[in-house]
């Protein structure tokens, strides 16, 4: 417990689109309040993973306590909650927001409001936040603060007349931001005498401390030595350490209402700590948990296989280590005739999938093949059974299927007017249903319902290409609906390549099949034998490409002095073939798999 009275605590989040300056502003706030010395400052202090820093995205929620002496002479405790900024982590974002009373809405004064900003700001409004609009990068020549201020009012419906004009980069008006936090955000409320209720905001694995849990105390006190209970599972743990982030970890005796901090309690894996759960006192438990808890459920699945079959165990270990720190992804062993031994992995979304893949290759030095991402279908059998399907290879025979349901999303796309036609066309091609279409100046905002499986299939790529990169996109899950879905198998010389099969709507199946056959024809190098590449639904071939045999491949001169070299070359060639996947007489290089299965992000 600090000496700060609850009236002097402010808990806030920063909402911003990628590159609009969230991390820079956070750095600047930390620096201005002196939480870190100049020597300790690195760029983007809060994004501790390399990947986070490089991609400018935050994966884990983090927090830092700032001590600010305001112009009124009082000292305030400002808790900055840095939240994951991507739709894949929408639930995690909502829990982080639930730990705060207000938000800074940071908008790039030249770029304006983007789709992702919208989704997050609506979440903040839903969480009951007081929102302070901040126009960043006002020092840039291209800045149009007035236009963007108007846009905030028009699009979001927020009063932006008091929007702060700042430049996080140059430090312009950072003081104004701090004052606004003190005066425009409400202090937290809470009853220190009530039974303990603390929101589990996030957790991560620390090799020295075990699992560290980030909490926001709502009522009661969280103390060292206290026995706490996770209300969703009933599991009890003894609190070993309590503290706050400065952003360094600083131990304290306890945390009171309104405070954000951490605890450790000899918990072995983050899988035991569900984001959104309520911690209470095991001996004097609260009657009911905090609202809004839901277990995390993977939305997108794909198979991950080591390129080198010998790396299977290494992959298993690496997945285990990643899961220590990220309970939201799931993995189970599976085998593929084409790719051998691997894992079926579930993710919160496409970005999440890509992050895990990239971390596996980067942090664990693994070469991986990922199969086409699949969404989770609900297969209703004729006998009334319903099963979830997340691997196209497991799709039962058509005769036992009554119908299949697929997940839908509600997508918000913001795009300059010039590209709207192309965007609408794209959404219609992807079976989209228009919900809303509004204009803000020369930018259009289209809201569509789309089947998620249309989005996992190169939707981002197309979106970016038809809008020349100007469209921004965000989505939220929007329930299930029946669809006419079929499995498309890819056959190479009549052998099905299980890893390439996918599920699509009947209306687009043929086009999709043709496109993947054509892609494979480009990607598979011509070989000794002619290769037939086919796409089929059940037994019916819907697309076919023929890759003709290579036309010439022979050494012109080969005499007595060339034999040794030629033999070694031949032996090397045989060795190289081991790294190819052999399908009958056909070798498909890894690169072709990777490229054929590559989805964008």
């Amino acid at each position, binding site marked *: 417990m600090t000496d700060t009275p609850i009236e002097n605590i402010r808990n806030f989040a920063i909402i911003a689109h990628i590159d609009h300056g969230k991390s820079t502003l956070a750095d600047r706030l930390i620096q201005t309040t002196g939480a870190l010395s100049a020597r300790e400052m690195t760029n983007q202090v809060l994004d501790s993973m390399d990947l986070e820093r490089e991609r400018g995205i935050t994966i884990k929620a983090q927090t830092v306590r700032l001590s600010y002496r305001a112009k009124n002479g009082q000292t305030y405790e400002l808790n900055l909650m840095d939240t994951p900024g991507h739709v894949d982590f929408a639930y995690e974002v909502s829990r982080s927001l639930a730990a705060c009373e207000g938000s800074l809405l940071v908008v790039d004064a030249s770029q304006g409001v983007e789709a992702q900003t919208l989704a997050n700001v609506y979440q903040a409004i839903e969480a009951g936040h007081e929102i302070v609009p901040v126009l960043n990068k006002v020092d840039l020549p291209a800045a149009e603060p007035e236009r963007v201020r108007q846009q905030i009012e028009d699009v979001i419906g927020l009063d932006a007349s008091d929007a702060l004009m700042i430049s996080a980069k140059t430090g312009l008006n950072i003081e104004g931001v701090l004052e606004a936090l003190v005066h425009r955000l409400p202090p937290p409320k809470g009853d220190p005498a009530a039974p303990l209720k603390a929101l589990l905001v996030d957790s991560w694995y620390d090799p020295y401390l075990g699992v560290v849990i980030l909490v926001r105390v709502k009522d009661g006190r969280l103390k060292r030595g206290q026995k706490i209970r996770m209300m969703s599972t009933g599991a009890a743990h003894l609190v070993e350490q309590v503290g706050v982030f400065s952003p360094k970890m600083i131990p304290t005796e306890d945390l009171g209402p309104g405070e954000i901090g951490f605890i450790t309690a000899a918990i072995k894996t983050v899988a035991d700590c569900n984001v959104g759960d309520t911690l209470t006192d095991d001996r004097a438990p609260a009657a009911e948990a905090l609202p809004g808890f839901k277990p995390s459920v993977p939305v997108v699945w794909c198979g991950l296989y080591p390129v080198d079959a010998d790396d299977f165990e290494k992959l298993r270990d690496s997945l285990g280590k990643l899961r220590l720190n990220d309970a939201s992804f799931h993995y189970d062993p599976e085998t593929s005739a084409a790719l051998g031994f691997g894992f079926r992995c579930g993710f919160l979304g496409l970005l999440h999938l890509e992050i895990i893949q990239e971390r596996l290759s980067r942090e664990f030095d693994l070469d991986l093949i990922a199969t086409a991402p699949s969404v989770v279908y609900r297969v209703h059998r004729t006998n009334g059974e319903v099963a979830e399907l997340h691997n196209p290879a497991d799709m039962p025979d058509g005769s036992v299927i009554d119908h299949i349901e697929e997940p839908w999303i509600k997508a918000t796309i913001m795009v300059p007017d010039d590209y709207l036609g192309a965007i609408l066309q794209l959404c219609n091609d992807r079976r989209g249903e228009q919900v809303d279409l509004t204009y803000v100046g020369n930018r259009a905002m289209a809201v569509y319902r789309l089947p998620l499986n249309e989005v996992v299939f190169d939707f981002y790529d197309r979106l970016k290409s038809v809008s020349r990169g100007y469209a921004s996109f965000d989505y939220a899950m929007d329930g299930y609906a029946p669809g006419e879905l079929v499995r498309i198998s890819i056959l190479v010389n009549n052998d099905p390549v299980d890893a390439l099969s996918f599920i699509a709507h009947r209306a687009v199946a043929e086009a999709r099949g043709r496109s993947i056959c054509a892609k494979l024809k480009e990607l598979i190098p011509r070989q000794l034998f002619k290769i037939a590449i086919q796409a089929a639904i059940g037994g019916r071939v819907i697309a076919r490409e023929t890759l003709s*045999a*290579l*036309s*010439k*491949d022979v050494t012109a001169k080969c005499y*007595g*002095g060339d034999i040794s070299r030629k*033999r070694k070359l*031949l032996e090397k060639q045989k060795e190289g073939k081991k790294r190819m996947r052999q399908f009958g*007489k056909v070798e498909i290089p890894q690169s072709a798999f990777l490229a054929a299965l590559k989805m964008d992000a």
Partner: protein
Amino acid sequence: MEPLALYIHWPFCLAKCPYCDFNSHVRDRIDQARFAAALRRELAWEAARLGRRRLGSIFFGGGTPSLMEPATVAALIDDAVRWFDPVAGMEITLEANPTSVEAERFAGFRAAGVNRVSVGVQSLDPAALGFLGRQHSADQAVAALELARRVFPRVSFDLIYARPGQTEAAWRAELRTALALAADHLSLYQLTIEPGTKFATLAARGEIVLPEGDAAAALYEATAEEAGTFGLAPYEVSNYARPGAESRHNLSYWRYEDYAGIGPGAHGRVTVDGALRATRRHRAPEVWAELVERHGHGTVEETPVVPAEAAREALLMGLRLGEGVDAARFARRTGMALDAALDLAMVEAAVDAGYLVREPGRLAATDAGRLRLDALLAAIVA
């Protein structure tokens, strides 16, 4: 045992051609006497350990062996005939460039015992000769060929095709002119970019681009067609001859028989005490000569060839030939049954695709198979 083939390497050239990765060197002055003595000494050393065997052919290669003194050639032939038992009408080939200097020596080479020349014409197109860095003109080439045909019983010459920008029509026309000058043997090579050559540098920079894939295949097929109309059949990937006019010496390589290699950088496959050995001499002419002067030979590597290696070598050479690989001879030579050296499922697929023919006791590549031999080998070799 089949007769021995003897290869003698002369490592010097007037200039290095931009496509050539052979062991050739340009020197201001060459100590002919020293290299002649060293070649003779290494030949004597090799002959001593091989014992008295039948000798099937001698081949003077390079470099540019037509820059040798005819007396050196004569001395080496005399030595070879002294150490071994030559077969009747033994083939003795010398590679010659068609410059006027070298043509003047033709009579001397013939007198020394050379009965076959292989002339490095490379092209009959003046611009192409410049591109290929040749030291002779097209007219000189024609003159040298005419002289060679008067002097030597057997004459072959080389051409290089599939040059950058060469159309099929242009090549057919050039080849027809060449065929009119030909006797009974031609070597027709598709231009290949070899690592470490000047062309490799140019190709890496994108300054030269060779016909590839379908275009290269079309040129190859055109070549066989034109040669065919003159009665020359492709008995090997790049070699065309009237029946009976094949190079006896080169057949030894492709049939994977014993050959001894004398001179800088020369390779050999020789049976010593009943076991097959691969030999290699030092590449640098002066270092090689010093080694010979000190030890009697310039060998830098001599390793046994185990059956699996011998089998791969016999296949990669043998399938270049129209006649293919004889199973009985293969087994005798390599110590491995032909079937054991092959991935039989792939062989069957290749037969189905029309790349291979299997007859009792023989495996051969078809024309289509030879056109893709490198890929075919990688598929069928076990």
